[in-house]
């Protein structure tokens, strides 16, 4: 066992993604708990990649590995998988850490299958018991937790749930950057990246809102969203929505709060008829005060709420509108 806990760093246009900060915290903690060392792996091209490596080197790690190659200018599954395969063969880490985000969805399974190693995505916690790492994964719509153990040789491929670890808890340091060469032929590349676009240019910037009232599937019909609009109006709030109601066409895409929509952190977030699927929580869990209204007492939204009402939203929301108006 090398003891190495290696984070695959995610970045765009020379900036390190927030989730990588979170993963570095996880790596430092996991290394400390297992008597190992934490390191980071940056894959990319040109000055942007170097800038990311330099920035990550400001965290306390054993080293930062940089693989700089024109083929890695954009993320492709085959480019990244090849680079990781080569680095893993040299460095033999015990753990490879990714984020449970679009990159993790694309790459974690592929890398684990390439290496023939155990893979566990979407972990929210870990602990070490009798020398064994035990990872915690929310399961069954987040209503239950599972203690998971991974068997077989390393590296074990793990992805962390966004927001489960705190980026600002990663210890600072001065870490050396070591460049590693990559052997990758043109013929091995399959994906042609044409570019990036913004899904929807909407008028609404929910991230600027102080108060947001969001509705989910619990509202049952698009007409019932009027309740959300009325409560928002009474509070001077913006209206948000969970993904399923946007997919169903009840609300426009620019109202969507979640991992593929807007990330918000208002002083008050009221989630009405929203169960709290991981993709939604990721978009709002840093709100200062969270209120959940849902008739299901086991809905995961209550795990992150400050206040909750477990009751029929069709009775609660009108009562809440009255109570808010009575104060004014």
């Amino acid at each position, binding site marked *: 066992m090398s003891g190495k806990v290696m984070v695959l760093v995610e970045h765009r246009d020379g900036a390190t993604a927030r989730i990588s900060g979170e993963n570095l915290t996880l790596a430092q903690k996991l290394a400390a708990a297992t008597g190992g060392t934490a390191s980071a792996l940056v894959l990319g091209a040109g000055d942007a990649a170097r800038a990311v490596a330099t920035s990550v080197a400001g965290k306390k790690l054993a080293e930062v590995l940089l693989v700089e190659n024109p083929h890695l200018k954009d993320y*492709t*599954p085959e480019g990244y*998988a090849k680079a990781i395969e080569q680095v893993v063969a040299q460095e033999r880490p015990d753990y490879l850490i990714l984020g449970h985000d*679009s990159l993790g*969805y*694309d790459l974690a*399974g*592929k890398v*684990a*299958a*390439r290496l023939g190693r*155990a*893979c566990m*995505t*979407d972990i929210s916690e870990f602990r070490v018991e009798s020398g064994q790492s*035990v990872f915690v994964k*929310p*399961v*069954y*719509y987040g*209503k*239950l*937790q*599972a*203690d*998971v153990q991974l*068997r077989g040789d390393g590296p074990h491929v793990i992805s962390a749930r966004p927001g489960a670890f705190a980026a600002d808890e990663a210890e600072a340091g001065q870490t050396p950057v070591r460049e590693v060469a990559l052997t990758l032929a043109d013929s091995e590349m*399959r*994906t*042609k*990246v*044409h*570019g*990036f*676009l*913004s*899904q*929807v240019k909407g008028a609404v910037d929910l991230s600027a809102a102080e108060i947001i009232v969001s509705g989910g599937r619990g509202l049952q019909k698009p007409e019932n969203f009027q309740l959300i609009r009325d409560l928002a109006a009474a509070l001077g709030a913006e209206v948000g929505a969970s993904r*399923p109601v946007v997919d169903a066409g009840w609300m426009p895409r620019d109202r969507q709060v979640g991992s*593929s929509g807007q990330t918000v952190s208002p002083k*008050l977030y009221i989630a009405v008829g929203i169960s709290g699927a991981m993709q939604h929580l990721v978009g709002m869990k840093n709100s*200062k*005060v969270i*209120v*959940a209204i849902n008739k299901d007492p086991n809905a995961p939204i*209550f*795990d992150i*709420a*400050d*206040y*909750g*009402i477990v*009751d029929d939203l069709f*009775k*609660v929301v009108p*009562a*809440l509108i*009255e*109570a808010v108006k009575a*104060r004014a």
Partner: protein
Amino acid sequence: MNIIVCVKQVPDKNSRFTVRGDGKDIEEKGLTLVLNEFDAYAIETALRLKEKHGGEVVVVSLGGEKIREVIVRSLAFGADRAIQLNDAAFEGSDSMATARILAAAIGKEKFDLILTGVMSDDMGYAQTGSMLAELLNIAHATIVMEALVDEGARRVRVKRELESGILEDCEIPLPALLTIQAGITEVRYPTLPNIMKARKKEIRQLNAAALGIDVSTVGAKGRLVEFRRLYHEEQAAGKKAEILKGSPAEAAKQLVERLAKVAKVI
């Protein structure tokens, strides 16, 4: 175009989830079993591609008698035939073992595209699709919100949904695997003629021997991921929701007071 769609049966979100006595899994009682919602979008995407390019849509699923319902439902949407991977030895497989079984079955078929959902609703691993593509040594793209196949069915151009409303526009060669994101299109209602035809369409049963699979690499024996224990989360220290009780009017009044006087956010 020959398109394979991998579908999974999952417990519906509103099922009653109780941990089994041994703590290793959930009780089957109280579960309503349904087709994974992401997979419905994958089936719809396959049907639209077939409507445009011709060919066949084959659904593949892993499981015993219980999964027959989701297979028939998939056929009722309009898929042409199905393959059911059914063997007691497959039970308890982790995602990698599942991918291995799927690869063994699909490897025997001619295909241009394999579609899966981004993840299963209940567990949210989002890994089996990319594992399957790697095991079959084909290109893949995940979280697909648009898939356009060229005239000659040699390449597919996709839009992938990244974070913060950003879409990646990229292109990969066929044969390829795509994991389909919810909301890619609207999902059709099965028509009455298709519902009637569904029960007559072929559901080919394949077991481990038929697939030539070494049973030590699948099921509970072959898995590398072990669930030690399932449980309800103990609330994280410092973040415990104050549940406001009483009638809706009373709870609402208490909430407004807390928000105004304690949290001071209104």
